[in-house]
């Protein structure tokens, strides 16, 4: 018997709301398969399972709020005998029964059947139950009412507040426990810009590369020499990560931010990364991330240049141990070989965990990053 428990989808998560199951008892599931959608304070996350098996019982009904670590489902190992015929006739884990007509009406009236008590045969939700619920909902709604939502209402309406709370918890933990040190370096971007312009010549707009992708790839390449910046600090020790999964800070239009992982950045071409980044941003804003994307990041990269700032002083997202921040690329007076010139440049900062690395290594990392950005053709 295997137990599938609610994973923590980030250091700041201690509970979630199960929105929907993607599997049912009897289904064979494989490692990495999406089995459920869980609403965290950040988004509705597609949760992947981390072992193979056959689903035996779903323990939690959609709509229920559960703590991290709670058993969501039980599975049996592949090849194991199926258990004797199920004994319990009906468990509370089953979704409520609803008549076809009531289901249709619920969609039309935008009533969430989960909150409706059924009065039909066997406690089924009937048409009348839905219509009554709609009347009650209308009566309770404030005058300039936003359109009703299908999913459990409290979860969605509170998401902004919940996210604020989650960010507060994570950042407080970071500043309380992680001894940050900060370094910054001005990096010339003339070569990178020229290369990018040339690379984008002739490409349709939808396939053009953004500078952000060059920066991400350069960070990943530079990290190969400095593994102490790439990994997780847990239980008093540092575990370096075998690959660079860059957490890309993405701000949300309604406020707050999420930094989902872009996997194996060092091993991918710029074109691949561009496609994946576009997809990641789109899904983040649509609130449909996979659980691995929320937990796998090994370092965070934030780019606030578009907002016009010159330099970022980042706060590390625990349990990561570093954050790289890019400011605005702008024309600067530059002295080289005794001559003054105007070149585009960017200030790149590193916030790193002093428990794991020192300023010396951090400085070398920034130098390495600078070197990569001077040879964009090799990225």
């Amino acid at each position, binding site marked *: 018997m295997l137990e599938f428990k609610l994973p923590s989808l980030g250091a700041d998560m201690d509970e979630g709301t199960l929105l929907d199951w993607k599997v049912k008892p009897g289904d064979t599931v494989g490692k990495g398969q999406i089995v459920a959608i869980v609403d965290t304070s950040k988004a509705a996350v597609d949760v992947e399972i981390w072992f193979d098996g056959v689903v035996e019982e779903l323990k939690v009904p959609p709509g229920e709020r559960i703590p991290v670590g709670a058993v969501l489902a039980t599975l049996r190992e592949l090849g194991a005998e199926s258990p004797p015929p199920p004994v319990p006739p009906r468990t509370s884990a089953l979704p409520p029964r609803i008549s076809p007509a009531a289901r249709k009406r619920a969609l039309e009236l935008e009533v969430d059947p989960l909150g409706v008590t059924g009065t*039909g045969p066997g406690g089924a939700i009937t048409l009348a139950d839905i219509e009554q619920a709609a009347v009650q909902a209308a009566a309770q709604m404030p005058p300039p009412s936003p359109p009703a939502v299908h999913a459990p209402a409290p979860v969605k309406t509170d998401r902004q507040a919940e996210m604020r709370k989650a960010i507060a918890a994570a950042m407080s933990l970071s500043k309380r426990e992680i001894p940050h040190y900060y370094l910054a370096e001005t990096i010339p971007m003339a070569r990178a810009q020229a290369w990018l312009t040339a690379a984008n010549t002739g490409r349709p707009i939808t396939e053009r590369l953004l500078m952000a992708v060059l920066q991400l790839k350069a960070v990943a390449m530079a990290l190969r020499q400095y593994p102490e910046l790439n990994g997780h600090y847990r239980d008093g020790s540092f575990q370096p990560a075998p690959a660079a999964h860059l957490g890309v800070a993405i701000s949300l239009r309604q406020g707050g931010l999420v930094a989902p992982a872009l996997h194996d950045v060092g091993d991918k071409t710029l074109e691949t990364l561009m496609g994946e980044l576009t997809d990641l941003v789109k899904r983040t804003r649509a609130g449909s991330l996979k659980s691995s994307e929320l937990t796998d990041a090994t370092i965070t990269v934030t780019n606030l240049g578009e907002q016009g700032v010159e330099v970022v002083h980042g706060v590390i997202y625990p349990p990561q141990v570093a954050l790289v921040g890019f400011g605005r690329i702008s024309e600067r007076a530059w002295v080289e070989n005794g001559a003054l010139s105007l070149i585009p440049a960017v200030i790149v900062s590193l916030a790193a965990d002093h428990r794991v690395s020192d300023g010396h290594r951090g400085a070398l990392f920034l130098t390495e990053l600078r070197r990569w950005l001077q040879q964009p053709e090799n990225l």
Partner: protein
Amino acid sequence: MKMSYREALREALREALRNDPRVFLMGEDVGKYGGAYAVSKGFLEEFGPERIRDTPLSELGFTGAGVGAACGGMRPIVEIMTVNFSLLALDQIVNTAALLRHMSGGQFSAPLVIRMATGAGRQLAAQHSHSLENWYAHVPGIRVLAPATIGDARGMLAPALADPDPVVIFEHAQIYNLEDECPTDWRCDIARAAIRRPGSQVSLITYGGSLPKTLLAADELAREGIDAEVIDLRVLRPLDMATLAATVRKTHRAVIVDEGWKTGSLAGEIVARLTEECFYDLDIPPRRICSEEVPMPYAKHLEDAALPQPAKIVAAVRELLNA
């Protein structure tokens, strides 16, 4: 004008015999005896032995003769005493009459009308109490009618005779004595179901001898504040799905009352079609009230217990709506 179901059938037959010289009636005891249920009483004297023909006790033989006469240009009305005896004529009905148009590539058809009594409720015991309407409703090539009102008893024969293909008419044995007003304009179609009682909360779908019982049940339900719509199928093949779908879209609840046995019943067909066509309009699982799956008992109290009854219908609806 008030008349009995039997009188309405007789009037329709008399009119057909008078208006069309091709029409004749044949069957067991239709002449001298006046018909097993006295529908053709007096016809022998009025129309003579050429047109009111007593036949030997051979359903297969005289039904086949009817098919032949129909192919030859006549408009025979074959009376089979009861549906149980019609099993002996199944080959002529199912294998010949129903298929002629198809098998002759459209060259021939058999425009005959077969009338037969059906149903239980008169203590005629196991062999004379069947409701096998669905056996015929299963077969493409024939139209199956179940007049359940005085108006339909009076009006259905004319369009049935006008139909170029075979038509089987089921007369429920329990309602020959039913009396009611006959509408002045009794002309009717043989294509559509009828709403016998409009209602909003549940659709009671029935036909034939179960219609009076269902109307009684609807009255009882009305006293309890449940507004039931009663649908009379009238035509068992082809089913008028438009009317059935419309009533279910209105009430969202369907109860089918069918004197046939539940397994393989017409009620089962209706539930299946409603599920296929109106799934998202159904608010409770459809329910069937059929005969108990036993040979029909002779004893009165057992026969009553085996058949659909108003009290059973009321109880089922009450349970469905209040559960």
